[in-house]
């Protein structure tokens, strides 16, 4: 007699169908489409028919090798040195263009290091992609824990019972509602090498001792600058989630801790932190996913430069898929990015599993 036990297939499907069709068509289909496209040579507009190319796109991105260069020697076997007393090595292109090493054809030098009297060179099929991969992983590894930690500190500060605390909460959260595009532009001004606010501030704090830095124009500081700004923009978001977690902890636990004479640190360690477990897992997963999606900041602030020091996977995927109309190349990067995101979230789940 209860309606919950009677099936209502027609109404049930009918109500869920529009939403499900939209999700299937605009999320699930393109998701699987990406895997297919990554194995073709599809372009956005092309007079030629699309061909299946297997894993070639992946090889073109992921090809990596280490080669050893021996110093040039004279007829007597002694190492030849130049005017500055440094050993001479053959150029990498003598190997990557040689018919003797077809497996290295078309690869370029990524980086090198000295090993005894030889030099080891890492060559890659796609150096820009490799830099994008490393930058993206660096961004995630630095920003995710820093941002989660700072957000927790802010949440603890905001969780105090003080008059007017809501005003501070409102201010800390404010950058979250501002578009990341707007924020990126503003910070371009802050980071400017000549008239930038940051340089001027540091100069006045050190009474002029500080030499101005072109924060976004210097390969050593560009990615770090973007990291700092990204944390500034998004930390309020995660502060609010931590705060929601903090407020689920029963006040009686805090009272008990006070009666037991626990110090502040002990209270945090034994009451607050265990109560935040689920929140912590959620925040880590959400931040990680957001970090992997890094795009707007790069597009507005640096376009991947200087010297590819701020290339990221999404930026490369868009630059190829849209900018160069190379849909298959862009899709291949998308698939690789998704597989990384999936692996990382599975690892996070496994590390934080109930034991």
């Amino acid at each position, binding site marked *: 007699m209860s309606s919950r036990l009677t099936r209502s297939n027609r109404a049930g499907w009918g109500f869920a169908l529009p939403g499900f069709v939209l999700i299937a068509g605009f999320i699930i289909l393109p998701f699987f489409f990406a895997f297919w*496209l990554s194995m073709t040579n599809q372009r956005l507009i092309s007079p030629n028919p699309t061909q299946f190319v297997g894993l070639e796109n992946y090889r073109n991105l992921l090809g990596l090798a280490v080669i050893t260069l021996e110093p040039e020697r004279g007829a007597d076997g002694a190492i030849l040195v130049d005017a500055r007393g440094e050993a001479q090595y053959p150029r990498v292109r003598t190997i990557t263009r040689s018919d003797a090493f077809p497996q290295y054809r078309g690869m370029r030098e990524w980086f090198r290091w000295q090993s005894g009297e030889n030099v080891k060179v890492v060559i890659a099929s796609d150096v820009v992609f490799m830099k994008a991969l490393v930058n993206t992983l660096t961004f995630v590894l630095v920003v995710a824990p820093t941002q989660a930690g700072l957000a927790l500190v802010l949440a603890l500060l905001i969780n105090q019972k003080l008059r007017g605390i809501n005003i501070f909460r409102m201010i800390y959260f404010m950058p979250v509602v501002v578009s990341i595009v707007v924020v990126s532009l*503003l910070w371009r001004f802050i980071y400017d090498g000549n008239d930038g606010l940051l340089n001027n501030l540091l100069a006045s704090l050190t009474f002029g001792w500080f030499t101005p830095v072109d924060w976004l124009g210097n390969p050593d500081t560009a990615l770090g600058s973007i990291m700092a700004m990204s944390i500034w923009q998004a930390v309020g978001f995660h502060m609010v989630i931590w705060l929601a977690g903090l407020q689920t902890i029963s006040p009686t636990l805090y009272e008990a801790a006070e009666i037991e004479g626990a110090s502040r640190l002990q209270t945090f360690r034994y009451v607050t932190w265990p109560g935040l477990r689920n929140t912590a897992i*959620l925040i880590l997963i*959400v931040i990680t996913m957001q970090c992997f999606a890094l795009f707007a900041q790069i597009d507005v602030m640096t376009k991947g430069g200087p010297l590819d020091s701020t290339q990221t996977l999404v930026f490369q995927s868009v630059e190829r898929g849209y900018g160069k109309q190379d849909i298959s190349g862009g899709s291949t990067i998308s698939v690789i990015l998704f597989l990384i995101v999936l692996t990382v979230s599975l690892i996070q789940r496994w590390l934080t599993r109930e034991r």
Partner: protein
Amino acid sequence: MASINPANHGLRLAVRYAVLSIIAVVFLFPLVFMIMSSFKPDLQLLQDTGSLRAFLPVGDLSFENYREAFERAPVWTFVKNSIIVTGLTVALSLFFCSLAAFSFAFLNWHGRDTVLAVILATLIVPFETIAIPLLLLVSKLPWLGMDGIEWGWLNTYRVQIIPWVADGLTIFLFVQYFKDLPHELVEAARVEGASWWQIYSRVVMPLAGPVLATAAILKFLVMYNQYLWPLIVVQEESYRPVMVGLQYFFQLNTAWGEVMAYLTLITVPVLIFYLALQRAFIASIASTGVKG
């Protein structure tokens, strides 16, 4: 507990407020700088960055930058496009997602749990990983227009709206909320002979105010702040939204005063909206994290 010394207590309180205030300055200064600069001529704007004047309404203030921004770019077109796209997407999303969630929460049908699981699984697919294949897809989709079937959705409003109408998070928020409603309400209406549609529209939705606000705010923030998607699917300025319209201000020599005026123009309405509804905004973000 240490004995409470009034002087000591006052000092501690002062330190607490000082710490909170310094952090507040860190979060506020770029926005204050943006608003103040939008009223200053370029030369003064650049000179003021050397001192605290950058954050103060001092010097030669005028609406000149705003006037020039409107001359340089079709600002009203961008604003109109953003309002159309954001407004329609939010409205359609609330309707279709709540309808689907109603079905998942109250109706019993074959395949329900599987479909819901598939929808929730899409939550781990970042949009950025499907943007490029989706671009190819929408460039080939048909549409029934005034003069028969047209192919390709690029440079339209629909390409900015339809793919964003349904998403896993919105459906999830509605399902969570509906499951906490007393089921007796629905069953009583059923016994009285109400149709499912009547139960959805007359019984459940009138109770859904809080979750509607949450879902609307989240969708609003996503849609108004869209960048990547309109950037790649809309090349014609007559369909471009405000965030992509920004590119207009970076041709040849950048006039920073105009940039700041445009940024202020597209940001301040959202900030006012946020200040007016800040509890609802913060609650909506918090609700995304309630279920771990």
